[in-house]
């Protein structure tokens, strides 16, 4: 039975290895950016339909950036219109999107590395992606359960609670998944 600290150490070694190799590092970077963009799109902060090139900043960004508009959602303090693509910049949501993106990226990068190690087994790149799904769903949990409206689902207390806990649950799953694939990756390297 391997201890938690050993598992974490093995995971760190796997992450280090994944970062050092150019191909697995590229997987991490691409997955991080892609996931962060997907998350920001899911919460409506990245969108199409902008009509111009423009930058607008709210009057008091320091007072505004920490104002909550829902579970894990905060007020945007700037809007960037770049042709047809628009971006509402909320520092906290952008940071959260990047954090989730990094976790997904590391999962996929380490899983990719383990897959490239011929003696590693029982692991696939899909495991990291599956762990990311709850976090992605939680990203759509806007202040007025818009996701449920879009899907035509009637809200219940249990469902609303599930949406509220989806993001922290997603982070936990991503961390657990990372330790799991990290151990496999380390085992593959040791073998």
């Amino acid at each position, binding site marked *: 039975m391997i201890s938690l600290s050993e598992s974490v150490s093995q995971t760190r070694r796997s992450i280090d290895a994944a970062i050092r190799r150019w191909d697995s590092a590229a997987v991490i970077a691409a997955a991080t950016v892609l996931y962060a963009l997907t998350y920001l799109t899911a919460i409506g902060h990245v969108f199409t339909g902008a009509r111009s090139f423009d930058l607008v900043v709210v009057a008091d960004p320091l007072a505004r950036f920490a104002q909550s508009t829902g579970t894990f959602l905060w007020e945007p303090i700037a809007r960037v219109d770049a042709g047809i693509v628009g971006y509402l910049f909320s520092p906290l949501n952008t940071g959260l999107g990047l954090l989730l993106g990094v976790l997904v990226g590391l999962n996929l990068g380490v899983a990719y590395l383990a897959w490239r190690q011929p003696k590693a087994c029982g692991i696939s790149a899909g495991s990291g992606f599956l762990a990311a799904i709850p976090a992605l769903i939680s990203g759509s949990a806007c*202040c*007025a359960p818009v996701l449920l409206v879009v899907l*035509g689902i009637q809200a219940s207390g249990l469902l609303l609670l599930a949406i509220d806990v989806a993001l922290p649950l997603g982070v936990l799953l991503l961390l657990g998944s990372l330790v799991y694939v990290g151990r496999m990756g380390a085992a593959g390297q040791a073998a």
Partner: protein
Amino acid sequence: MERQVTRRAVLAAGLTALAGCTGGAGSSGGTTTQTTTDSTTGATSTTESGTTTGTGDVPVAESQLPLEYTFNELRDAVHTGARKDAIPAIDEPVFVSPDEAEVDDEAIVFGIAAGETVKAYPQQILVWHEVVNDVVDGTPLAVTYCPLTGTALGFERGTTTFGVSGKLVNNNLVMYDRATDSWWSQILGTAFRGQYEGDSLRGHPLVWTTWGKWRDRFPDTEVLSQETGFLRNYGNDPYGSYNPKGGYYTQDSTLFDTLVKDGRHHPKEVFVGTRGQGGVVAIQEAEIADRGVVPAGEYLAVHHPDLDATYTYHNPEGVEFSAGDTGIVGPEETHRPDDLPLDRVMAFDAMWFAWVGFYPSTEVIA
């Protein structure tokens, strides 16, 4: 019809709406309207008159609007859709000229023409804010919109402002006043929790139409700007679309349970509802557009073809009007649809489930 919560037994809404009923939940009526016409724009404005009888800063109507539920039943039916003020009201609205408006011609706007003031509030902005604390022709007004019930109503707000509580009853917006934090149901126009419990607001009807039609009718109108103090994707309605109609606005489902389920019509079918002196009546909007003039008890609903909107009047004498080629033909002359020689009443578009949920005893004309 299946009831979702118990309700106090009431007589038909028409009886409860008799003027001079005693106060308290379930009583109603007595609210009168005053119509003024502006000489330059020809615009008519209507106010439910009353006195500032409540404690605090909110001007309330002389008597309570019709209710078919006790306040306890309404409080028990509350759902939480968002945190308080998570949907931020617009407290410092900025208006621009039609040339500067970033609104498509087919986009929905809620118009108000009162005295010297003509304003349009785009649905694509209100869907993100639900309340605009404005001043119209010198009167402080809260312009309110609930996307989940498709209802837009104006209310006098006195010296206070209104915010979005994040609560819903029958999927309908529950506002709160910032003077006392009382909870006000938008469709009922009545507070059901807090210091103002039992008081009704004085309403101002808004005109639900499209930007192109409103601008053509009122070329000098102002329009609410996207400079709201907040940053949103105002081109996008997170619930669906009105052009073409889709998403939530056509689905069978609602976000939360409704107060009643009544399968006589599609839940999202639009009715024009009014509740006041002449009772509680819902008229199918398509019927009004089709016939031009629809008598409904003490009310008269008139279709305004240029605005594709409904103007509703109190017609207790049953004066006969009919739709003519050049306007609404009365006993003596022809009138513009928005300028009949009758008192205009507070009436508004509402989705069927929302109206029948609050007023199960409503008279229905379809």
